[in-house]
């Protein structure tokens, strides 16, 4: 028995501009991502991988095509519903961490809970859960530190704790190690692999082939199209046509 894939993209296109100045950022992308997959997206800049991430993250809408997340057609949702969807089902990890400045690690981790209208929690419960998440990423003692008092690697751990706190279906990591030295980067990758091992679905954009090679599956983007969709290890290579079927 096959359950529905977590992500279904069908004929997804994104155009910017009008008339002769139209730029095709994405062209007829169709693919599925199953629950529990760790997918790496590679490609040169301008290949459309950021646009794809933004659409997957419900921060942007496609010009054409459909995007189903958990079976729900995202295209039919308004801004408030998209916000709720980001809040409940998505966790973002950015290259530049994007923590709130002058705000403690604990409060940063609590942020998504504050916007979770469907599961209102008491301040104590929020604090406790945020503490648990910081434990999970190994920052137990740093809860009251502000971002500028933390190293890059520590900030990214806080960001991961924040991404996890509302128990999302999908974690979107946009070059999570891009600003880190190799050792901190390695620690962050270990953390992400740990989450994957625990059953999380992760989509990660990266420039580094070495990092991509450790994912289950590597999508290579070029000129707005998925040029290659390769499964690592024992998995068989899938074709674009296969995903579209």
């Amino acid at each position, binding site marked *: 028995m096959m359950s529905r894939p977590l992500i279904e993209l069908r004929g997804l296109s994104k155009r910017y501009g009008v008339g002769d100045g139209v730029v095709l950022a994405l062209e007829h992308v169709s693919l599925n991502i199953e629950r529990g997959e760790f997918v790496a997206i590679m490609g040169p800049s301008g290949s459309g991988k950021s646009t794809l991430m933004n659409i997957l993250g419900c*921060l942007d809408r496609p010009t054409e095509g459909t995007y189903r997340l958990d079976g729900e057609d995202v295209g039919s949702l308004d801004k408030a519903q998209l916000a*709720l969807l*980001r809040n409940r089902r998505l966790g973002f990890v950015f290259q530049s961490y*994007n923590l*709130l*400045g002058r705000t403690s690690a604990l409060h940063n981790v609590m*942020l998504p809970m*504050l*916007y979770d209208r469907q599961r209102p929690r008491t301040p104590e419960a929020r604090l406790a859960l945020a503490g648990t998440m910081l434990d999970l990423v190994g920052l137990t003692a740093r809860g009251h530190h502000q971002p500028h008092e933390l190293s890059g690697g520590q900030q990214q751990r806080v960001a991961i704790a924040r991404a996890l706190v*509302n128990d999302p279906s999908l974690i979107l990591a946009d070059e999570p190690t891009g600003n880190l030295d190799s050792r901190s980067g390695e620690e962050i990758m270990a953390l992400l692999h740990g989450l994957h091992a625990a059953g999380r679905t992760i989509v990660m954009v990266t420039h580094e082939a070495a990092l991509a090679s450790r994912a289950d599956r590597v999508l290579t983007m070029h000129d707005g199209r998925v040029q290659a969709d390769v499964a690592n290890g024992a998995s068989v290579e899938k074709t674009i046509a296969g995903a579209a079927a």
Partner: protein
Amino acid sequence: MIPREFLRTAWESIRKNKLRSFLTMLGIIIGTASVIVMVAISAGTEAAIEEQITGLGSNLVFVTASFSRGGPGEGMSSGGLVYDDAAALHEGIRGVEGVIVEQGASASLRAGSVSLDEVEILGTTPAFPTVRDVNLQSGRFLLEAEVQRKAKVAVLGAGLAEELFGESDPIGQTVTAGTTKLTVVGVTAPKGSVGGTDFDSRLYTPITVVFQKFTPAQFSRIVGDRVRAITIAVAEDQDLNETILQIKLLLSKRHEVSLEALDFTVTTQDDIINTRESTTAAFRSLLSWVAGVSLIVGGIGIMNIMLVSVTERTREIGIRQAVGASPSDIRWQFLTESLLLSLVGGAVGVVAGVGGAWLFGVFSEMPTVVVPESIILAFASAAAVGGFFGFYPANRAARLDPIEALRHE
């Protein structure tokens, strides 16, 4: 997001920019405080005027000469009040408690070694204490016989008596006004200043004496001579309009003029109160405009700072949107901040306004009364200003595109 979190976030943001928040609030503080102070001043002035006018004595009717009929050639002979009109009014109108005629002058005063310049001399008639609501501290007031025979007697205001005679008893002493020697027969009880008139520093003497000694020659005859005004005290239970009509009928018959062409006008205290009140109402509306404008200026300050804040915090807005803040969450976050700024500013302004009104009352001639409604009005206006001027920046923040916002440096 829940209201308490909006408040906490807004408070954090205000606290993180203390100086800027204070400067932003300053406009609202000044606006709120000025509403309260302005209202306190106009209410104080109004109360003072009302006190003064009721202090003039109760139920007064003023008959004033006006030279309405006759061309320039006929001049003053064609109209005006005469001294005998006063007596006729007293006898001919029901419910009249007293009628006085007043004629002011000024002269230098001397008593023993003390001499004063430019003292107000008021020539009047015996009913003065009744009509003007003045009590006597010692001695008695002027008598009708003294008016008739132009007796050189004087009643001193309380303050004047003390200036001239100090601790010693002025009754029976002599005061020289100009070149006229007057014998003091009484001293009035202190009354203070009422309606711009200082009752305590005046000298009262029979009106006939003023005509004879202190006014130019054309006023020197007594009987049948012209007076400027007659003041009539009417009993409380009388219908004032009825009394006024009787006065008009009686005087028009005496002056042989028709009711349509009276050579005098009749006014009441109510007319005076109304005139003064319309003046203070104009004053008050001017003040409220000034206060309103300063609140609006304060509001523009809030809008300005909130716009700067939205721009500065674009990335923060992007982060909040990414983790699930809806447009209305963002809108409320900034609206809460501008409301909080204006409410805190309003609260500080209320304290400053109440304090300012009090200081103003202490250090200036103008009395102030803090009106509780003005506090509510000022505070509510501050809140309204915060909401109104905060809405545009908040809406702008809410409409930001998450991707653009996240890219913002």
